[in-house]
């Protein structure tokens, strides 16, 4: 066990994967010699050579398109999109090709690839370095969608994603790359080293896809969230002084409905929190699932706290990014009815 930041944990996951499976191959913009703009692959090219880890031209659809071809042949590409905001040129290859290859070829070809991308806001990145497009992938049958919130999970989930036989969209909440973030508007992070979940085994281990984690047990209200918002929710729960159960979904697709339903049946109340714009965000699906499965247990309307339905602004970042105060208000209001 060592203390790792999320970046170190991700790097360690790729190190393990490169080391254990010769079919694993990593590429993306600036990931090679330089080791990525967030340094996630730093040192790995020097260790494994250019044939295992290399730079690509700035063409996200080529990055994924090449990966589809390689994966179909049996390699295991783990590619990086520099920011989730730049994944859209690859959207066709991801949704129409990677997601469907196994099905449409009746299993003749499959597509075991991982598309890593830093996601979310809180870093003053403006509208093109802050988006949270997860819901644009959860609508696509054939994909899995993962968002870790701790170094420990980041490593275990990434190894599991690389080993998974199907395409995985792996979204990394960049705001917490270097430490958990509780919503402090000065933007300061606490370092990971102070957090229990930065204890990361050095070798191989997996955190299974499709299983949520209960970050805080509670009796009063269930909060469904993921990524950076896990921490902002922790802060909000303290602020609101309610005994909330915080569920970190970790995998959005397929969803761990069992854990969710058990919790909401217990608490009878539910708040959903995410950074992405509200309308048709993943929160809507969560509300639909909870409503379908727990209707008769619900004692108040499910609330959602989300980014607003506007492009992610630069200067007004903290008015956009869901604050602990907004979450606390939702918790209080969920308790009121």
């Amino acid at each position, binding site marked *: 066990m060592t203390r790792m930041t999320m970046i170190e944990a991700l790097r360690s996951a790729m190190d393990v994967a490169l080391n254990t499976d010769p079919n694993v*191959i990593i590429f993306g913009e600036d990931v090679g010699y330089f080791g990525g703009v967030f340094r996630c692959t730093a040192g790995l090219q020097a260790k494994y050579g250019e*044939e295992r880890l290399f730079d*690509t*031209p700035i*063409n996200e*659809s*080529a990055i994924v*398109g*090449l*990966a*589809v*071809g*390689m994966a*179909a*042949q*049996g*390699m295991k590409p783990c590619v990086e999109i520099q920011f989730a905001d730049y994944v859209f*040129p690859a959207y*066709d*290859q991801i949704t*129409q*090709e990677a997601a469907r*290859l*196994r*099905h*449409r*070829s*009746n*299993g*003749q*070809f*499959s597509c075991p690839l991982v598309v890593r991308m830093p996601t979310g806001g809180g870093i003053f990145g403006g509208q093109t370095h802050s988006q949270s497009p997860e819901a644009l992938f959860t609508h696509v*049958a*054939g994909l*899995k969608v993962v968002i870790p919130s701790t170094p420990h999970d980041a490593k275990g989930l990434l190894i599991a994603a690389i080993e998974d*036989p*199907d395409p995985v969209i792996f979204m990394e909440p960049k705001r917490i790359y270097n430490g958990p973030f509780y919503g402090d508007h000065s933007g300061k992070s606490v370092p990971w080293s102070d957090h229990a979940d930065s204890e990361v085994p050095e070798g191989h281990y997996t955190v299974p896809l*499709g299983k949520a984690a209960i970050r805080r047990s509670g009796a009063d209200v269930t909060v469904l969230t993921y990524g950076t918002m896990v921490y902002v929710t922790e802060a909000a729960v303290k602020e609101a002084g309610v005994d909330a159960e915080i569920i970190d979904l970790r995998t959005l697709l*397929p*969803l761990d*409905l*069992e854990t969710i339903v058990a919790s909401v049946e217990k608490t009878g109340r539910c708040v959903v929190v995410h950074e992405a714009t509200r309308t048709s965000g993943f929160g809507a699906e969560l509300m639909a699932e909870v409503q379908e499965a727990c209707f008769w247990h619900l004692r108040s309307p499910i609330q959602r706290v989300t980014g607003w339905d506007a492009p992610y602004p630069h200067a007004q970042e903290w008015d956009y990014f869901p604050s602990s105060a907004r979450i606390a208000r939702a918790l209080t209001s969920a308790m009121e009815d």
Partner: protein
Amino acid sequence: MTDAKLSFPHPPSRPDQAPDFSGIVIPEAGSLPVPPVDITAKDCWPFAVGLIRVLDDDNQAVGPWADYLGDIPAETLQLGLRDMLKMRAIDKRLQNAQRQGKTSFYLQCTGEEAIGCGFQRQLEQGDMNFPTYRQQTLLVAADYPLESLMGQLYSNELDPLQGRQLPIMHSARDYGFFSISGNLGTQYVQAVGWAMACALRGDGKIAAGWIGDGATASNDFHSALLSASVYQPPVVLNVVNNQWAISTYTGVAAGKSETYAARALGYGIPALRVDGNDYLAVLAVSRWAIERARAGYGPTLIEWFTYRAAAHSTSDDPSAYRARNEADAWPLGDPVARLKAHMIARGDWNDARHTQAEAELLDKVSEVQKRVEAHGTFVNPKPISPAEIFRGVYADLPEHLRRQRQEMGY
């Protein structure tokens, strides 16, 4: 105020006009040499804007590319002719089946048979084509079982894809045929990725990408050429320029480009333009490019110059947008007729044998068709289980799909 006016490309003729191919320059057969295997793009201009042809107007194989092929055994040519005739028989029967309502959709490759038939016969087991919907020739020349091909047409139990795909969107890994996508272009860059994997494994295999002239406009065409240029994997990138993309004249995809082959030179990829209706030219250039790839000289782009003689598909009626009889006026003729004439000129073939071969192949295709139809057609369906919808979305059935299957009643 200004002289700037937009330009709009037009086809040489429209339905109310006579076919007009006077704008197409047809160089003499045999006029282009065989380039050195390590040729660079810079030196490729004459090959990219010229037209490699082997069969001349007297049906003789002439010039450096004929020499490159060397003595061709009669059997090789007969095999090629039979591949093409078989393809025609299949197209004929399946087009008919669609007209009879036995399947929802069909799409012929008439006029383009030489390209896929010739190319496939130069590949090795383990090489992989990334085809479009108009490369059924590759399957035929790979001896893909007709039962599978037709099973898919009728979406019956013989369908290897269990009804999931359109009748014409085949997938046949063991026959070197990648799963066809309905989204144009996507396969082109995937072919490059597959070829990169071949090189990384060092398994001696190659990949071949296929794209239509219209689809060269797609982003994936660019992604593919760029990636092939950067990483130099063993891939042959084929452009089937059949002059049309549904109702759209090839000029709309070409713009002011000299040729599609010339487009590749800008990426530093050697490229050649070839008479796609000349089976011998197809054999020769395919062999050259495939050997080049396998030997580690990197990608080649081949523009196959041909003509889409049939409608785009059974949903299309070309008389609405192009001159009647354009196919007959196509200056490069018909690939079957030309190979036949060459074989006759060689003394290896005659009209009687040709008629007999045609009849035999049509019989054989019809016989299989009848057998396959007994397993169900659109008129007389024998449904595949609806639960098939959920199989293969993922390797393992996740909980939510299990619930949905249950909700469906399975």
